[in-house]
């Protein structure tokens, strides 16, 4: 699917804030993925047109990143961690259970298109191992029963509010809204961030991860959800969106640096 009119506008806003259009590639790919759940060939061709690149260049970049999908993905992307902390706490057992319940191997999608299962490396929620993410929202201390409940809730739509449609990286949209004012707004945001860093450099030795800088939310938007990392939460409860925010921030930063 080509980008719809609203998304084309968002893409153009993004292109405007970078010195070179190509720098907007990854954020725009996230927009395309938010629209269709994965990157269709039409979408990649459209993005190439918008950026003055060849489709092959867009495809090359898109295929590099694990969070960008060039194949169809189910409505819920279930990412189960099997890295060290989760492995020690039963990550593989959870994955096996998921395989049995869903009837697919990692990389597979259930025939009804509801679930795609994937095995992932550490998703930085080790404190709540074994953990998983659904559409990049975190669920920790997941038992087999929790998992079954979670599937039921996802199917029934009970989690519609907390688990966004697949492909949606929440942070990207918020940042975009802030930058929609074009270059001046983006520059202002960047200056604010820089001022914040200059005033309080992050403690390097701090065991807790430093809160990454975020541009202020635009007026009228809810402030970011408070950091409740570390609090144990029962499964089937939405984990903090902050983790997803962080993932997105890291990516944003890498991107801007290009």
């Amino acid at each position: 699917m080509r980008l719809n009119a609203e998304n084309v506008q968002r893409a153009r806003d993004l292109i405007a804030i970078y010195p070179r259009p190509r720098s907007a590639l990854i954020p725009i790919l996230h927009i395309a993925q938010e629209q269709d759940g994965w990157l269709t060939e039409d979408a990649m061709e459209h993005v190439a047109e918008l950026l003055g690149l060849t489709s092959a260049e867009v495809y090359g970049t898109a295929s590099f990143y694990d969070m960008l999908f060039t194949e169809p993905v189910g409505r819920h992307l279930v990412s189960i961690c099997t890295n060290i902390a989760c492995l020690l706490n039963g990550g593989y057992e959870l994955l096996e259970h998921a395989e049995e319940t869903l009837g697919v191997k990692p990389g597979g999608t259930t025939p009804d298109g509801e679930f795609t299962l994937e095995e992932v490396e550490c998703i930085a929620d080790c404190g709540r191992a074994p953990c998983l993410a659904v559409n990049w929202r975190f669920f920790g201390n997941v038992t087999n029963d929790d998992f079954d409940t979670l599937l039921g809730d996802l199917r029934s739509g009970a989690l519609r509010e907390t688990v966004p449609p697949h492909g949606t990286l929440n942070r990207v949209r918020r940042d975009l809204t802030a930058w929609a004012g074009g270059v001046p707004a983006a520059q202002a945001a960047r200056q604010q961030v820089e001022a914040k860093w200059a005033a309080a450099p992050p403690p390097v030795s701090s065991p807790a991860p430093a809160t990454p800088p975020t541009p202020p939310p635009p007026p009228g938007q809810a402030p970011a959800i408070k950091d409740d990392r570390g609090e144990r939460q029962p499964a089937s409860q939405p984990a903090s969106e902050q983790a997803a925010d962080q993932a997105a921030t890291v990516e944003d930063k890498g991107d801007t640096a290009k």
Partner: protein
Amino acid sequence: MAESTTETVTITVDGKQVEAKPGEMIIAAAERAGVYIPRFCYHPRMRPVGMCRMCLVEVTGPRGPVLTPACFVPVADGQEIVTDSPKVKKAQDGVLEFLLINHPLDCPVCDKGGECPLQDQTLAFGPGESRFVEEKRHWEKPISLSDLVYLDRERCIQCDRCTRFADEVAGDPLIEFVGRGDHIEVNTFPDQPFSSYFSGNTVQLCPVGALLAKPYRFKARPWDLEQVESTCTMCSFGCRVAVQSSANQLTRYIGIDSDPVNHGWLCDKGRFSYQWVNSEERLSAPLVRKGDELVEASWGEALAAVAKGVKGAIDVHGPSTVAVLGGARLPNEDQYAWAKLAKSVIGTDHVDAQMGDGLPASVVLGLPRATIDEACAADAVILLAPDVKEVLPVLYLRLRSAAVDGRVPMVELSPRSSGLTRYCAASLGYRPGEAAAVARALVANQSPTAEVGGVSVEALTAARQAIGGASRVVVVLGRPSLAESAESVVEAAAVLAGLPDARFLPALSRSNVLGALDMGLAPGVLPGRVALDAGRAWWSQAGAWSSVPETAGLDAAGILRDAAVGKIQALVLLGADPATDFPDRELARQAVVGAGFVVAVDTFLNESAKQADVVLPAAGFAERPGTTTNIEGRVTRLGQKIVPPGTAWPDWMIAVELAARLGGDLGVETVEGLWDEIVQFAPSHAGASRAVLADRAHRDGLVLPLPFAAAAEPAEEPAEPMDPTAAPGIAAVEAPPADFSTAPAAVEKMERPGMIEFRAPADAAPLPQLDSYALRLVVTKPLYDDGTLVQHSPALAGLAREPRVRANHYDLDRLGLGTGGRVRVQSPRTSFVAEAEVDDGVPRGSVALTFGEHAGALIDVSQPVIDVRLETP
């Protein structure tokens, strides 16, 4: 480090002091000093990426010796480099073991086997043994990347050479790395093939057998191939090639890195054109017309028939009823022999090697010439030329790189966008016929205030800014469109010639057409770039010619016009096929029918030859020695590797025989003799003796005329050593053999005539008014055309595209048409229906077609411009 005032820095490589140029990479500096550092991804003509790590060496820094990629780190004064320590050896072992982890080692069935940098460097630097016992990765083998290239992903070592080439050099980033880690592969976007005019270069660059040329795959083993150095003559750019053959068949061409010309690159048309030479349909015996049929005959019989026909015309109607058309395909020596035959023995000046797509010889030879290097280093380049990407593809690469890497501002005067448009500071899409007015506005002292020739004030202003203050301007000059007269282009060129120190690079693309002009195969000129009148005394007294025609003859259009009305009694087609090749096909067909007696000297029985009375088979590329001349006037040597099919003769030999049968004598019996005579008498070729040309210091050829000192003394400096991994497959390619057993005679003491100087022509005739329903026609040549040579190269024949009628969306909208719709094109001469294409690179009010059947029917060469109407069918 403090800014150094010296031009070089000194580094130590394995204990040896080496002078290096600041900014150059360690690997290159070491190589010049004779130390070869193994490499895969590094390529001297591309930006370093440090992808493969094969080039690790120890460089002593503040923290002691550190393993450093030599291709990625520039030299610095005092640097100490060790390339053979145990640590380096261990690194090389490790890298090779790693690269071989997933390499299938199917060398016995790999095209690259025997010339493979991976094989060679594994043997020379590798561990000999691998600890990897797990399963290698598997891919479908091979997949098709394009019509010409296969990819075997199992063999790929991810060196990034092909992908970098496509992006950096060709500007066609259609192949990319897809995936990551051990899932990485080179690939295209799904269903979008790697259709680049330059795709074959990636096959040559690939340091393993991952990229394969479809026409060559499984055809030969490298060690069975013989090779000789030569020059591609599919266009006039003059790319150096290694011609490789086996069992009297050409098997492939490999680009040789000639610094002033092609940088090692070839276009796909040139690279795969060896196929026509091998074609089964080549003419291999003379043919003589018996009634309605052409039947095989002996050379004696055929030559007698030609002599009779030509002699009959001379005796009854005079020598000026004989005409020679064509000759651009021939090497210089053969062209000279034919010029001498036509002008001195027969006595006609109706001789033209250009087929209505060129410029008058006096203009091309008279304008100050630029070299390719000068164009690429100019302060500004003005393009008043055909689309160089289509007709001189590697010139396109050089100019593109000048614009992108060298930031040379370019301005294009063109009635349609071209391959270079996106690299131009301004593209002035003028209305056909009005180039001169636009040129005047471009160089005028006052800024433009109104639109000129269809070009807006803004575009003109941008163009004037781009060339403003430039003191060295190079104009790439040719015919932007076949549907617009040469006069209007010449008028524009005359305007541009007024720019201070302007130089011109001819964009005439026909094979050795520049050689043909130098050798006198054009009306009004004699060999050596001299005008007929100025050179008459010299050539008929000092230079072995028996006579020189009294008056200047007709050009191709004039010859055909006269032939069509029966005024040409004998027409010689020297590798020419006017019926499909002349812009005005109608006129050409009438001419071939109307000429009294037609002789075709050619490699194929083309459309025109089919109408001939006698057909003589000629030798083709790589079937004879000789020299050729490129657009800058650079003469290089052609190599012979195979013998011609059947009894085909080189063209010069045919000329010598015919001269004898016409009662004359060319006075030479060998190619060498011909060259000696040229060097002896042609003012432009003075000093370019066989010995000087064969000198390895001149392996890139000589740009003529030579400055006097260079002629006297060949340069001493040897050519740069060739990097064996840069162009796998051409280690130790040999120059064509040279024979000096017959020394040229000393030049007589007579004043040489001066060479032609450019004189501004009279202004072209006024254009007809464009009525508001008509569109002005633009006709361009595509790279893959319906010409004989492309159509006899199976790999290329299928690449020719059905021509579409291209126009601005504004003009097509009026008819309610979009891309793919059917449109009727109506002209006073013809009308046809074809597919339309929206192309906003065509200015409003114009319509563009590529040359072929339809365009040829529309063009009327007696008109300065062609106006057509578009209608819904």
